[in-house]
Structures are given as C-alpha cells and as structure tokens.
C-alpha cells in the first residue's frame, strides 16, 4: 500500500515536471527556427528615417518582402540563396540600377535587409548617386556621419545610409537597418 502511494507520488512529480517543462516558457522555437534577427517590420517604414524611392514608392529596410513586391512590382532578375540547413532563403531582387536583398526575420518572414544602388542611373531622394564626390555627399547629408575605413555612415530613424568613397568618388550607396 505504501509502495503504491509512493509510485503514485512519483507519477505525480513526473507529470508536474512535464507540465512545468511545457509551461515555463513561451519560447516555441525549435532547432529549425533562427534565434534573434530583426524585430522591425512595418514600423521601420512608418518612422521618419531615410528611405529610398523606387517607381514612386518608398522602400525602407525592415519592410516585408511581400509589401515591397506589391509596391514596386515583380522583377525577372531574382537570385535566391537558401541558407545552410533550411534556415530560410535570402533573395536578391534587381530592379535596373537597384539591388534589394531580403532575408528572413526571426519569424521566418523575409524583410528588406539592404537596398543598394548599382550604377549612377539611380540616385537617393536627396540627389546623390554613384561616382559623385565627398563634397556632394556632405552637401546633401551634412557632416554628421561616422567614418570607418572608406565607409561614411549616416543614421536617421531606424535606417542607416552608408557611402563608400574611394579616391573622392562614391563607389557604393547602401541602405540598411541601423541596428545591424
């Protein structure tokens, strides 16, 4: 009888452990779900940060890929790069002079990671394009940048705008999330 009671107690403890194990956290990530990642979504688009304009539509890093395609349309020039071990797929969409990379966020939804200008046929809304000079950049964006090597970075809202300048010539213009 005593033994039976003890076994019942054991079973109860075990059930409790299991219940605690299930209930002690809201984390439902499995091994196939990436930890971390961007938390910005449409919020990024709503703030007053830098944005890029394509086909008359405002695009910002953090914007959902589906929203981007709805806004600017499809393109035939898409490169998909599946992450190792099924951790989502990065996409590179090329719209003429503009290259947009989307990556999966923590929930597996692809968002714009970077917007890059490929040639001088495209320019920022402030009128800066590739092959312009440092003076052109500062005339448009001021002196409030941080410099690391050849990279000059401005941050506004949740968006960071980076220029790479080599021999006083802008060779790269890229928008990304300030948190990255």
């Amino acid at each position, binding site marked *: 009888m005593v033994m039976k009671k003890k076994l019942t107690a054991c079973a109860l403890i075990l059930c409790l*452990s299991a219940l605690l194990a299930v209930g002690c956290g809201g984390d439902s990530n499995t091994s196939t779900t990436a930890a*971390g990642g961007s938390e910005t979504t449409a919020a990024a688009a709503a703030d007053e940060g830098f944005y890029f304009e394509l086909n008359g539509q405002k695009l910002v890093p953090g914007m959902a890929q589906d929203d981007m395609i709805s806004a600017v349309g499809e393109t035939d020039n898409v*490169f*998909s790069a*599946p992450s*190792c071990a099924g951790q989502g797929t990065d996409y590179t969409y090329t719209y003429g002079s503009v290259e947009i990379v989307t990556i999966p966020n923590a929930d597996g939804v692809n968002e714009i990671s970077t917007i890059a200008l490929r040639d001088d046929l495209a320019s920022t809304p402030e009128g800066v394009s590739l092959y312009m000079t440092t003076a052109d950049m500062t005339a448009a964006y001021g002196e409030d940048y941080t410099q*690391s*090597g050849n990279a000059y970075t401005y941050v506004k809202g949740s968006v960071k705008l980076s220029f790479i300048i080599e021999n006083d010539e802008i060779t*790269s213009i890229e928008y990304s999330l300030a948190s990255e």
Partner: protein
Amino acid sequence: MKKKKFLSAVVIILFIAGSLYLLQRLVMPKYMDDVVEGNFIAEYYDEEKDHDVIFLGDCEVYENFSPMVLWEEYGINSYIRGSAQQLVSQSYYILEDTLRYETPDVVVFSVLAVPYNEAPRESYNRMTLDGMRWSLSKVNAILDSMTEEESFLDYVFPLLRYHSRITELTADDFTYLFHRDLVSHNGYYMRVDSLPAENVPEGRPLGDYTIDAAQMEYLDKIRILCEENGIQLVLVKAPSLYPYWYDEWDAQIVDYANEHDLLYVNLLDQADEAGLDFQTDTYDGGLHLNLSGAEKLSHYFGAILRDQCGLESRRGEEALEAAWQEKALWYQEDKARQEAEIAAGN
C-alpha cells in the same frame, strides 16, 4: 526502516532522473526529416577513426567534396567534419575534439568563414555543438560561440531549451528516440538535383576588407594545433559562386599561407580546370555543388592531395576496402533514391 527509506528515496530519484532523461531525448530535435545537417557532427563518432584527411568547415566542405571519390580514385580515407555555418572557432574545437580520437595526415580547412565572420545563430550553434561529445573542447566551443540569448546550462540540459517542443512532437521524435539513421557519406551531404546558376549578384564594395583579427587568431590556432601534431594544414576556398569571395580577402589568405608555408587552393579560380559547369553541377544556383559537381571537384582535388601532400593510396587494405564497400552501397542507394524521387517529380 531507515535503510528502506533510503532505498525508496534512491529509487524515486533514479525514476525521476530516468524520466527526465527520456523526456529530454524525446524533445530534442532529431534532424532526420529535412534538416539532416544537424546530425553530421555526431555521425563521426560511430566511424572507424583512421582517416588520412579530415575536412573542417561549413557547407563549403560538406556539400562540395565526396570522400567516396577520394577513396575510389585515390585510395584516400577521408571524413568531413563539417556543419552548417561552422564558425572558425568551432572548427578549431572540432579539430581538438577529432585529435582525441585520431591524428590525420592532412587537415583541409575551408576559409570562407574566416572573413565572413557571421554572427553566431542559435540554430546553427545547436546543429554543431549538440552533436559533439562532451569534452573540454565542447565546453570551450559552447562558451566561445554562444549567443547572448543562450545559456551554457541549456547545452548541459537540452530539456531546458527544447521543452516547448513537447507540443510539436512528430512520429520521428519517437522513431529516433534512441538512434539515428545514417544521413551523410563520411560527412558529405549528397544532392543529385540540379538548378543552374543565374543572376548571381556581384559583391558590393566594402568599406574595409581587413579580416577580423579574432578570426585570424583562430585560424592561427588551427595552424599551430596541426603543427604540434605533425599534420599538414591545407587551406581551401570552395568553388561556390555565392556568398561572394572578394579578391582582397583572398590576398590576405594567400599572404597568411605564404607566411606559414601552407598550401592554399582557391578552387573558385580553378573551377574550369576542375571541369565544373554551373549550369549542371550545382543544385541551388551556384551556392553548393550537386553530386555531379562534388564528384568532379573531388576528382580534381584528390590529385592535389596525392601530388602536393604526398598521400599514398590505401586501396588494398582489407579492413578499409570492406568498410568502403559498405559505404559504396549506401552511396549508390542514396543516389538512386534521390534520382527516383526526381523522376517521380517530388
């Protein structure tokens, strides 16, 4: 009476510990369905450990080199200790771990991760670290690569991490409670499907091409560990078209190899020589090779291992022949299964 109470307490504790252990095994991911890469690191321990060559690195090793070809054509007994997004620090600790079991003649290390310096991700960490057997190397690997959100205790007791999977269990969780089927071919991940490389983006200019000193430090630790154990270290860049490999990074690896008298093979530059055709030899548009590509590359690279590392053929060694014969059956079976699936349109 006291003795009886003590025994009861012991039985209860053992029962609870055993039940928690079972529960832990049940909720841990099995990586048998789609993300089979999660099993690669653990599979090594079931191997007969007498390898001539050990490959270390990320998908650029486990998806691009076929140990089967190295054996059949060159008599080289090799194993790939690769894992998804394997960090340079993890490669170092996996090498340390490997040396607990064997000392190969050559270690081939994929350099992609050195300049890329990807931020650790929990899912990738888990796939690499959970598979390692417990040792000081594993402890240090965990401590070195944990993300801020992870805790060491979660690795010691994975139940703490995976408990919430109790509501998401599948049949696999019960089928593979105590065992796993073999999923790799000496660490090689076979894919026979094909997807031509198209629209591969060029690398965008970077503000600073200098490879992070901490990354170089781990590369150096790998080199020193190899030196201490009389192992020839070979650095290799796989011929993957993406992620982009910058000339500026390559120059730094070349300098490092020259400085330390290491063999560095940039297979990206030698893809044509190896006979690779990115219209047919890749399964994901140029990121990784399919079986056809991996076999061509291994044929090419095997000659380098033979001619430049002095590896002699071990064909004819009875035990090895028998082991590889068995592996060949599984290799052909996996290939035939995948081809049948493609033919059936799956």
